């Protein structure tokens, strides 16, 4: 750790951060606690397997000199190194720092870190990991800064440090009642050594001011409602011009020829640029195409309409999702796929059973469709490139832009703006590369590339398309004796290796391998599936089809056996026990230690029981209404949902009420956990009822929110009740929050529809299937 710090350099550094980020209101009048070299918290033992934050690229950093600045006016500036996309991380993690620091939240400002993982630790904002991985490092940051302020005050008064304590932005001398404000102490504190991690005095949870409380105001709330918040699309750089790109409609396609003469006649159009295509695998590469650069976005769009382009569509031009679904069904209908887990003898158990069940469940491709489409602004000056963008992956952005510009990553700066939604789409920096390439084509002038909604829907990194084939057997007592699951879906790995036809551990660990059911004979298979479009991650990823299939299938079995769904589900889950995921052949376990994060069926039972109690499972309902239940374990959190639906005689679906119970371990910012669960409920309604991307002749058939529909206010659940189940204490491992709410929603809706109408939905979206 660096202990010889120069105030001048700090000031420059922090000022640079604030200026570079273009986020308003960060001008510091003084400096800080300081800025030093990062010290990372990697585990000492290089041989031991790494899990959680230790296993992430560039690990984690808990140096207060990197994350906290205190100005002489007492204002505290905290760096958010994770991207804000609606999950509330710019509030939740700085709030943890502020709490341990005993800072007054009203005096806290948050600035966004540029992409620089060596400095800040991992910044890859996905996988429901930000609070889970950085709760402890951020507590350390706050505690260390607080102890430095205490030491500075003790030195100032010439008293022992044990006589002073921090309270609400002041250090107090207990015996004399003397008080010094944080601003008065900042300079002296900055000159002190950062305390060793082992010596940090963390708060007891009963001393928490913000953590676990409901009241912390959103740091960006007022800027958002007044239109001042700066998203990627709002970045304005001197001399900036605007671009849109006509991209190949088919994955792997390229421009054969083009005529830009009419486009160039559109008033405001400056230039047309051919961008080279990238053959599969897609990785994070731009798709190529023809870019129109203009004085404003609208002129660029008008110019693009006038382009005449002949495409070479390449080998994916025959991709039709209707046909592909039949192929997947065939693959799912026979054995011979890769066997991933096998215990007992499933074939024999199915053959000799008293009763067997078999069903296929289909979920189409989905587009994340964040309200802010992909957008990026780039400028190249003096051999250095700056990009401003809403990105979930600041470091991958830096590395990918550098690669495409053939620059050193040190010469590329990624300024992370607010994200107008991400949901996984903005983990792929293809659109940042486009901006950088176009800036280069404009001799370094700033270029903003905006994707239209049609671009976003036509050229995404889609949620995969899938068939989940399930078979089960029960004995004469109605107990399940066999479970066969064949999962068929193009894998995300195809985006990185075009020859890949099998799913990878992170997908298999999402509710296929790690089913916790107490059944003797289990077999899990993964037949081949080739990708014909860019497959990416969509909030909750492969958990969506697995929860839909498994939770629907269990309800189907319970109904056939004339069992109460809840009772049958709990029987399948079996008694409370902690299962080591390694025993289930789940190598991934969301990147977490199998010992620290076992699959705890007691917690799964608890969310089921809690949601049933809160939603009054089994309550009487008028005709046409029904209740549906589903549960799922994902991102090391446990959720269960009950949905009440009403289906009118002509098949119109409404949702009067949803209940969702979540056990995500300790709740750092319960208010944002609630909002994430509410949002997951509505996104679940969206994908269950209307979400579908289909392909014809290799191209996406939907264009905009008219054909790719998402749920609107009048279609959303009238009431959503979120039930947060408390953890024992703050030493319990944290679970994910952003994604786990989504998987149980679609099956709970479909189970409710069955209860209301007797109609079983196995293919999503529901759309017109309820019309008689």
């Amino acid at each position, binding site marked *: 750790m660096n202990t010889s710090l120069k105030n001048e350099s700090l000031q420059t550094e922090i000022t640079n951060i604030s200026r570079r980020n273009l986020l308003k209101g960060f001008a510091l009048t003084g400096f800080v606690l300081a800025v030093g070299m990062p010290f990372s918290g990697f585990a000492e033992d290089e041989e031991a397997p790494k899990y959680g934050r230790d296993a992430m690229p560039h690990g984690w950093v808990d140096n207060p000199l990197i994350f906290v600045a205190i100005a002489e006016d007492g204002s505290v500036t905290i760096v958010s190194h994770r991207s804000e*996309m609606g999950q509330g991380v710019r509030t939740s993690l700085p709030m943890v720092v502020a709490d341990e620091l005993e800072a007054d939240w009203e005096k806290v400002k948050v600035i966004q870190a540029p992409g620089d993982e060596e400095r800040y630790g991992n910044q890859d904002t996905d996988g429901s990991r930000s609070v889970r991985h950085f709760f402890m490092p951020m507590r350390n940051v706050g505690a260390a800064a607080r102890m430095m302020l205490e030491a500075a005050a003790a030195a100032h008064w010439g008293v022992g440090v044990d006589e002073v304590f921090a309270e609400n932005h002041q250090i107090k001398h207990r015996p004399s009642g003397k008080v010094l404000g944080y601003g008065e102490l900042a300079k002296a504190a900055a000159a002190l050594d950062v305390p060793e991690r082992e010596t940090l005095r963390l708060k007891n949870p009963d001393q928490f001011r913000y953590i676990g409380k409901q009241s912390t105001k959103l740091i960006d709330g007022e800027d958002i*409602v007044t239109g001042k918040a700066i998203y990627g699309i709002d970045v304005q750089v001197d001399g900036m011009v605007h671009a849109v790109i006509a991209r190949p409609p088919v994955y792997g396609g390229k421009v054969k020829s083009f005529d830009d003469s009419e486009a160039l006649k559109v008033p405001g159009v400056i230039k047309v640029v051919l961008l080279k295509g990238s053959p599969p695998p897609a990785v994070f590469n731009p798709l190529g195409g023809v870019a129109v650069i203009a004085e404003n*976005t609208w002129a660029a769009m008008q110019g693009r309409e006038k382009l005449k382009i002949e495409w070479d569509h390449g080998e994916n031009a025959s991709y039709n999702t209707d046909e592909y679904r039949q192929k997947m069904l065939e693959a799912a209908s026979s054995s011979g796929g890769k066997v991933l887990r096998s215990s007992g003898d499933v074939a024999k158990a199915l053959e000799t059973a008293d009763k067997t069940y078999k069903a296929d469940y289909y979920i189409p491709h989905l587009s994340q469709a964040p*309200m802010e489409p992909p957008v990026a602004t780039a400028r190249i000056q003096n051999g250095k490139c700056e990009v401003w963008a809403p990105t979930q992956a600041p470091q991958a952005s830096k590395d990918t832009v550098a690669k495409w510009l053939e620059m050193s990553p040190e010469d590329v700066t990624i300024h992370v703006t607010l994200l107008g939604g991400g949901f996984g789409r903005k983990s792929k920096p293809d659109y940042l590369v486009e901006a950088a390439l176009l800036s280069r084509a404009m001799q370094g002038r700033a270029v903003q590339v905006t994707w239209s909604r049609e671009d976003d829907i036509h050229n995404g990194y889609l949620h995969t398309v899938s068939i989940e084939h399930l078979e089960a057997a029960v004995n004469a007592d109605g107990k399940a004796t066999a479970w066969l699951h064949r999962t068929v879906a193009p894998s995300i790995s195809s985006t990185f290796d075009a020859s890949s036809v099998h799913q990878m551990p992170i997908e298999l660990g999402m509710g296929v391998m790690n089913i916790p059911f107490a059944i003797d004979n289990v077999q899990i298979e993964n037949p081949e599936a080739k990708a014909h479009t860019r497959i990416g991650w969509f909030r909750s990823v492969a958990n969506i089809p697995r929860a839909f299939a498994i939770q629907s299938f269990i309800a189907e079995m319970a109904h056939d056996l004339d069992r109460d769904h809840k009772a049958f589900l709990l029987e399948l889950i079996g008694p409370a026990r902690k299962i080591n995921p390694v025993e289930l052949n789940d190598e991934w376990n969301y990147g977490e230690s199998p010992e620290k994060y076992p699959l705890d069926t007691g917690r799964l039972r608890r969310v089921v029981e809690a949601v049933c109690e809160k939603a009054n499972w089994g309550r009487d309902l008028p005709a046409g209404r029904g209740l549906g239940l589903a549960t799922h374990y994902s991102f090391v959190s446990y959720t269960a949902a009950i949905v009440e639906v009403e289906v009118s005689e002509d098949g119109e679906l409404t949702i009067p009420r949803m209940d969702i119970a979540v056990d995500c371990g300790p709740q750092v910012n319960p208010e944002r956990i609630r909002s*994430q669960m509410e949002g997951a409920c509505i996104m679940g309604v969206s994908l269950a009822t209307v979400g579908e991307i289909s392909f014809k002749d290799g191209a996406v058939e939907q264009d905009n929110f008219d054909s790719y529909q998402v*749920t609107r*206010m009048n279609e959303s659940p009238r009431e959503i009740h979120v039930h947060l189940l408390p953890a024992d204490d703050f030493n319990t491992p944290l679970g994910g929050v952003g994604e786990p709410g989504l998987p149980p929603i679609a099956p709970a809706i479909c189970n409710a529809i069955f209860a209301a109408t007797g109609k079983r939905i196995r293919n999503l979206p529901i759309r017109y299937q309820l019309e008689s």
Partner: protein
Amino acid sequence: MKLSVNGESHEVNLPEDMPILWTLRDVLGMTGTKFGCGKALCGACTVMLDGQPIRSCSTPISAAQGKQITTVEAVSKDKVGQAIQQAWVELGVPQCGYCQSGQVVSATALLRDNPNPSDADIDNAMSGNICRCGTYNRIRDAIKLAATNNGGAQ
């Protein structure tokens, strides 16, 4: 052509079919109004034209001649708009926040017109505004809170 935005007059030399949205954002540098779809399908671009909510992505500047454009940046100048913004903050409505400019403008227009809206009124006024994060229930609650604070609903 003259455009009146939030009480200020701007002289612009632009094609008359250019949408208000891109004029605000790329010419006048007012970025509070957002682009979401370009086809009047999502409401992110909602502004008021003489007090009525319109989708600025699909309304040409020629349609704004002699009329007043009010954007999210000026909503707080209005008592109802202030009540809406305060309720949004108090109930923690925004998640990513991108659609909220349009939501705030639509809600302000609703409440100015109808100080005590029913659930059906709220559905009618707000269903053109998509929120992909799923903040609809809090939006509904915030409109009701603003109505109460503004002396409308009881």
